[in-house]
């Protein structure tokens, strides 16, 4: 149990028991917890901020993937914090090339493994932040998904360019304050809604797409495992907080991420061979305002803007659940 002790006790089971039941009482939860690898392939001592959910997203993904994997990574926080020469946090083979090409590099790795007859033994895992995925890396990702490479792409989404100091990306939510979408006399923050990247990925007709949250580690790790086991491209979009970017205290990361899911700001689902399944249904849907009020990036929002967001969330909720 030592290794996974950081999974908070309020993480609830999504299997047989109700969401309100405590995790420790659920047999399935305990069983899954036992299956989590104790091996740390993303070593401690890296330079990420405390409370960084992106570092957790990588750590948990590697626990699910195991050792026989090659990882590609774009330029960004996770690259910077994990690989300052001559140190490395990576206990698996890892390559960083540039900002916009993690998926293209992964294509090359996968093709090389095929050509060298090693593909059966080694999996390919590409990471990208939201900027490196939905904006600058969009073309490379779309190409790699369309070509059908056997790899898993994980977008850890902290909803802005955090590495360069919190600038808005195509994944920044409505109303959020960033350094390039600041609220002011003529502005309420970011004017646009989040780009719906998971469903854009699904539109490529790939066999597996999932959303996940670092606050639901077992659900996330199961999805990573499933994605790796499926032949062909798979895409996972994991919601991961940035403490300075969101304006939250480090110990609040998981709580805030959890509220994102419980309020419907982030919905956990998977699309397997075109069929959508919601993997976690909050027993009680919390008002979006509860999620917003915990974060400085939304503190300037008026009732009116919050109402807009609530309507948006309600519509999205209906939309996703109706697809199930």
């Amino acid at each position, binding site marked *: 149990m030592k290794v996974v002790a950081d999974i908070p006790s309020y993480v609830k089971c999504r299997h047989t028991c109700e969401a309100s039941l405590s995790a420790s009482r659920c047999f399935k939860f305990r069983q899954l917890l036992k299956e989590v690898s104790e091996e740390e392939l993303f070593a401690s001592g890296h330079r990420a901020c405390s409370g960084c959910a992106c570092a957790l997203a990588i750590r948990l993904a590697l626990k699910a993937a195991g*050792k*026989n*994997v*090659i990882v*590609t990574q774009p330029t960004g926080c996770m*690259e*910077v914090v994990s*690989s*300052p*020469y*001559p140190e*490395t946090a*990576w*206990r*698996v*083979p*890892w*390559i*960083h*090339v*540039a900002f*916009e*090409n993690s998926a*293209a*590099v*992964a*294509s*090359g*790795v996968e*093709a*090389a*493994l*095929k*050509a*060298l007859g090693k593909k059966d*033994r*080694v999996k390919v895992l590409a990471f990208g932040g939201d900027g490196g995925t939905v904006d600058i890396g969009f*073309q*490379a990702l*779309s*190409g*790699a998904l*369309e*070509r059908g490479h056997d790899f898993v792409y994980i977008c850890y989404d902290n909803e802005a360019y955090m590495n360069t100091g919190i600038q808005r990306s195509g994944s920044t939510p409505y109303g959020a304050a960033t350094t390039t979408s600041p609220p002011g006399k003529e502005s309420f923050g970011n004017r646009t809604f989040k780009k719906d990247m998971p469903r854009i990925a699904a539109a490529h007709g790939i066999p597996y797409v999932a959303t996940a949250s670092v606050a639901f580690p077992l659900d996330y790790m199961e999805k990573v495992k499933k994605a790796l086991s499926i032949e062909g491209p798979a895409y996972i979009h994991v919601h991961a907080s940035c403490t300075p970017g969101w304006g939250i205290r480090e110990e609040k990361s998981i709580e805030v991420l959890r509220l994102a899911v419980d309020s419907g700001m982030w919905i956990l689902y998977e699309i397997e061979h075109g069929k959508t399944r919601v993997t976690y249904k909050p027993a009680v849907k919390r008002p979006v305002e509860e999620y917003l009020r915990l974060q400085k990036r939304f503190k300037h929002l008026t009732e009116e803007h919050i109402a807009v967001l609530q309507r948006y969330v309600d519509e999205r909720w209906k939309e996703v659940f109706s697809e199930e």
Partner: protein
Amino acid sequence: MKEMLHGSKAVAKAVKLCDVDVVAAYPITPQTPIVEYIAQMVADGELGAEYIMVESEHSAMSACIGASATGARTFTATSSQGLAYMHEVLWIASGMRLPIVMVNANRALSAPINIWNDQSDSISERDSGWVQIYVETNQEALDSVIQAYRIAEDKEVLLPVMVCMDGFVLTHTMEPVDVPSQEKVNEFLPPFEPEVKLDPEQPMTMGALGEPQWYMEFRKQQDEAMGRALSRVKDVDEEFGRIFGRSYGVLEEYNTANAEVVLLTIGSLAGTIKDVVDSYEDVGLVRLRLFRPLPEEDIAKALEGASVVGVLEKDIALGLREGALCTEVKKVCYDHGLSTKVLSFVCGLGGRDVRMEDVEKAIEVCRRAAKGEKVSRTTWLGLREAVL
């Protein structure tokens, strides 16, 4: 046995002979026939390579980097805008010391958009850390691709190599080419077995962050590798000559022995110039084959007897008001204490034909300079003054 081959097909045959594992390429005129021939070879099972039809040149080079880092022998080809689009990743391929081989079908850069031949594209990448070889013939294109893998994969070098061939002039033109046997190529080119690669058996971190206390040393090592590449290019070419009976050197001297005027060029233009200088007693030609690393000693030696050097090149270094190669030749002369007068002749931009009369005009300007007459330091050959 000699076959009549387009330059593109000669390159594709070289790729097959080198038993390349991964090809990642995006089509662009005039490189397209190269990737088409390779695609057909893969489709016919003649070449057992993984061929990734990427969605851009940026991804082509990125995929090559991923494949090469995983231990695969890797090839791509591009041209012009495609090379410019790759610019960012060219530096990363060389900085990560990955022995990727690329053929660039030389083509003008936009704007105005133009698909025809000049060398502005690859000349613009001169500082990107790639070895650059410019070929004159289709035979040399084939041979240089084979040599390129030996140079790139040499443990003392480990740098990517760009083989530059004039678009259309070579890529779409047939010439007799001697295609070597697989046995001979195998004898010359051992399998690619990199010491460092992405492998779960021995996890490596590649592409790490180089902070100020490390960055300069990485660059210095790269610069040293470029220095070693110069001698390895020569060694590899000599060995190639022993096995295949053809070698090219880092530059070719043509009628330079008693030449007062020497013309210097790169690429296929050398063919036209050779025809012209045949009619002159005192005019020779230096065809530079290796542009990066610049074989400075060899250039100085080839030019030491000449009083005027005319550099004919298909590029313009905007802001210098002369060709980029010309500036480099001046540098070589300065460093070697040569008082040779160096004149720039900008020609053939965007596919403008360089005719024998243009070369004769360059010779005339050089001869006037040799007599002590004042001449313009840069002359645009074949320019339609009337429409300016």
